């Protein structure tokens, strides 16, 4: 049994238009009456709620069926109803706490959502983003079969998603890899090893902060000369990439070295005691941008490193978030492919439970809010097609919703929040301009080496 695709409901985007119910009633019952829909939206004061089959992992409707008419398909996770076995006793409806299996008078038996064989009509009918068909599970099923190239028991902080990034990325990149992990959280949690043993199942080395991309250049060229196809991969932090390591990174990018450089951005030097980096955002508390009588957090804006990398006209540059794994995987695949031709750079946001001060269970939620508030923009670039947004930047959450989730912004004054809001809006405008090809910088990039 693996993970399954699912229909997700976001009540905040629902306006009660009933389009989902109308198409479901038509598709499943040939009926114009929404009472025959297997998805039911109900008003709850000013907002809307959902009654529909959740395709439960431990389905009570199935356990409660005396006639073996209900069964969860281990392949796709959908709970299927067999009309030739059903005896109409309705005990399934006693088991369901979600109003997901209901007697339908017109049909004369219980009905439930079957996800339209993995292509749900209700989702396609929803124009407001309240219903989504999440297929992310396919990735986990697929990647679950690939070899984990790190040893068990890496010592990351509780709730850190960097371990997730490392393990997922390396599973996909594969074992024919030489890995560089410059100083930072990634070697800090044990990937580079202890007591003469590495924490990886591939050759790994621990360059200086300054020379990661230079050393990988040499490694890659060495193997190339020997006629061996080896992935040269860096798993670096934002400090190592954007500050003291930038010279070698910029050089390798400019030369078009065949390297895959993954920058895990946790907005500071979190491994060594939470110092600020050039990727730390304005207003953020760090141990070197303290908050007190005079200090109010960082006084400069973050360096937009992925944009700078794009301006090198690299073979591939993209930003990604672990809250959007399908997007991350698409980009990882394209980055791996691009690194066979030239320099590929993937910038992945990694909220730091310890340094940003939020509960360890909320990492993915924080990552999601960062994207939904446009604090982090998801896009990709290649020299032929320029920059493209991979996620809609309209309908954003308020930036305050994101900031208040994090302890490092607790001290912010109204002025500082206003500054951050303005910076976010400027970034959105800038990236949108690039995406639409109107910005002169994009024109310049696109007239480059390609």
């Amino acid at each position, binding site marked *: 049994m693996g993970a399954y695709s699912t229909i997700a409901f976001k*009540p905040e985007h629902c306006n009660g238009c009933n389009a989902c119910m109308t198409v479901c009633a038509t598709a499943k019952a040939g009926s114009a009456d929404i009472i025959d829909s297997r998805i*039911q939206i*109900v*008003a*709850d004061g000013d907002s809307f*709620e*959902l*009654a529909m089959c959740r395709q439960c992992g*431990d389905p*009570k409707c199935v*356990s*409660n069926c*005396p*006639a*073996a008419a209900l069964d969860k398909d281990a392949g796709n996770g959908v709970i299927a109803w067999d009309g*030739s*076995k059903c*005896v*109409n*006793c*309705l*005990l399934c*409806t*006693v*088991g*369901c*706490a*979600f*109003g997901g299996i*209901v*007697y339908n*008078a017109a049909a*004369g038996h219980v009905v439930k959502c079957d996800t339209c064989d993995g292509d749900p009509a209700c989702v396609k009918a929803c124009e407001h983003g309240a219903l989504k068909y999440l297929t992310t599970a396919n990735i986990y099923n697929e990647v679950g079969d690939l070899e984990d190239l790190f040893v068990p028991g890496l010592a990351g902080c509780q709730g850190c998603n960097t371990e997730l990034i490392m393990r997922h990325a390396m599973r996909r990149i594969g074992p024919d890899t030489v890995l560089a992990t410059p100083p930072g959280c990634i070697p800090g949690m044990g990937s580079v090893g202890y007591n003469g043993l590495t924490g990886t199942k591939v050759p790994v080395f621990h360059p200086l902060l300054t020379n990661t991309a230079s050393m990988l250049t040499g490694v890659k060229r060495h193997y190339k000369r020997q006629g061996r196809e080896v992935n040269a991969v860096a798993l670096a932090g934002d400090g190592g990439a954007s500050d003291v390591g930038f010279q070698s990174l910029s050089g390798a990018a400019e030369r078009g070295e065949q390297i895959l450089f993954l920058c895990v951005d946790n907005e500071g030097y979190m491994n060594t005691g939470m110092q600020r980096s050039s990727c730390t955002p304005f207003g953020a508390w760090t141990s070197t941008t303290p908050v007190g009588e005079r200090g109010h957090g960082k006084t400069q804006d973050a360096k937009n490193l992925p944009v700078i990398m794009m301006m090198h006209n690299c073979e591939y540059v993209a930003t990604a978030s672990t809250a959007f794994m399908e997007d991350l995987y698409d980009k990882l695949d394209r980055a791996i492919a691009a690194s066979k031709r030239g320099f590929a750079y993937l910038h992945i946001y990694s909220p730091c439970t310890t340094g940003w001060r939020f509960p360890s269970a909320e990492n993915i939620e924080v990552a999601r809010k960062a994207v939904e508030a446009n604090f982090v923009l998801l896009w990709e670039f290649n020299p032929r097609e320029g920059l493209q947004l991979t996620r809609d930047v309209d309908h954003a959450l308020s930036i305050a919703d994101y900031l208040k989730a994090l302890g490092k912004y607790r001290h912010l004054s109204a002025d500082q929040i206003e500054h951050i809001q303005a910076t976010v809006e400027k970034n959105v405008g800038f990236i949108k301009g690039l995406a639409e090809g109107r910005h002169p910088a994009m024109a310049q990039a696109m007239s480059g080496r390609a």
Partner: protein
Amino acid sequence: MEETQYLIVGASHAALSALQAIRMQDAEGSITLVTRDDALPYSPTVLPYVVSGRSAPERVALKDGAWFEQNKVGFIRGAAVTAVDAAARRAKLSSGAEIAFGKLLLATGAAPILPPIPGLKDVKFHVLRSLDDAVKLNQALPNTKQAVVLGAGLVGMHAAENLAKAGAAVTVVEMQPRVLAGYFDAEASAIIEAAFAAKGIKLMLGAKVSRCETAGGGVRVTTDSGAALDADLLLVAAGVAPVTDFLAGSGVAVDRGVLVDDTMRASVEGIWAAGDVAQAKGFYDEARILNGILPSAVEQGKIAGMAMAGDPALKPWPGGVPLNTYTFFGQQAVSVGSQDVGEVVRKEADAKRYLKIVMQGNRLTGIFGINVPFDPGVMWELILRRIDLSPVRAAFIDEPQKTARAIMSRTWR
């Protein structure tokens, strides 16, 4: 002697639910399932549909051999447990074999009660609890012209409907003044009674059978009012009682059923009980009750399995809530909760529709409907979670289904 870590006696909902819960926590520990039926696991609840012919006997199995193999479970069928030695942790089977166990789950269910009616033992009659019973009753249907059913509970009422549909003249004799007295009040029962009367089924309510005797080719049933009913088929459906006879001398405390605590543990170390055989805490007061319904068996089985396997996610039994669903002549009756705890806040009944809502303060304690749609599973949760309905009280009473769905979606999203 065979040894097993988990011995489960019984093979219906409580047993299967426990087995799945054990396997969630303990993938390898040896499990043996023993059942007195010589059949793959089935539900007693499906039997009325085997009688009617809607369900083919070979298609009602809840699990098959491949499933037992996949879950690494030894399945012994056609063997009843005849004695349990709790101290030595051994069970004796009707086949003569003995099994040593680490932990034991009693999920033996219930068996029909035969009322002490003079002459009953000497006449031919049917009961309906096993697949064999159902097949026999199904085979008897075409040749039945006159049938008498003793008892107007769910088994009796289903059978009466099936017999009438097969063309028999049917009389139901019930001691209580109304049908399905365990689940519905007089007005609701009246709707059901009217549907039966309209199909020509005779309901003798508040009546007692004083004698049974063989007469002609069939049976003559005499009631205490002196009425004589001739039948070529007699079905005794006067209720069921937990199967506990094999526990005599085991030290396991038995009242009406096996007495269990909130994790389904019996009075003796290493032994649990779940389903119709168990007597567990009721929801509305602390007294231990028999609540022999399928959804309780599923829940209790799961709790017992989790407790046996030491699953840390175990949540104690919240208490039994009487509930059931009943379909008759294409109509739907649903009963969730208590008729008596709290006060009636809405009640309406006509010939075809019935709805009653009972609340205690601002909490739901019971909801009952005939041909009125609401989600029994959602209502059950509202009762168990003791949800405070004060912010939506009027809306809930007015539109229980929609309001409960909104609360559900918001509360356990």
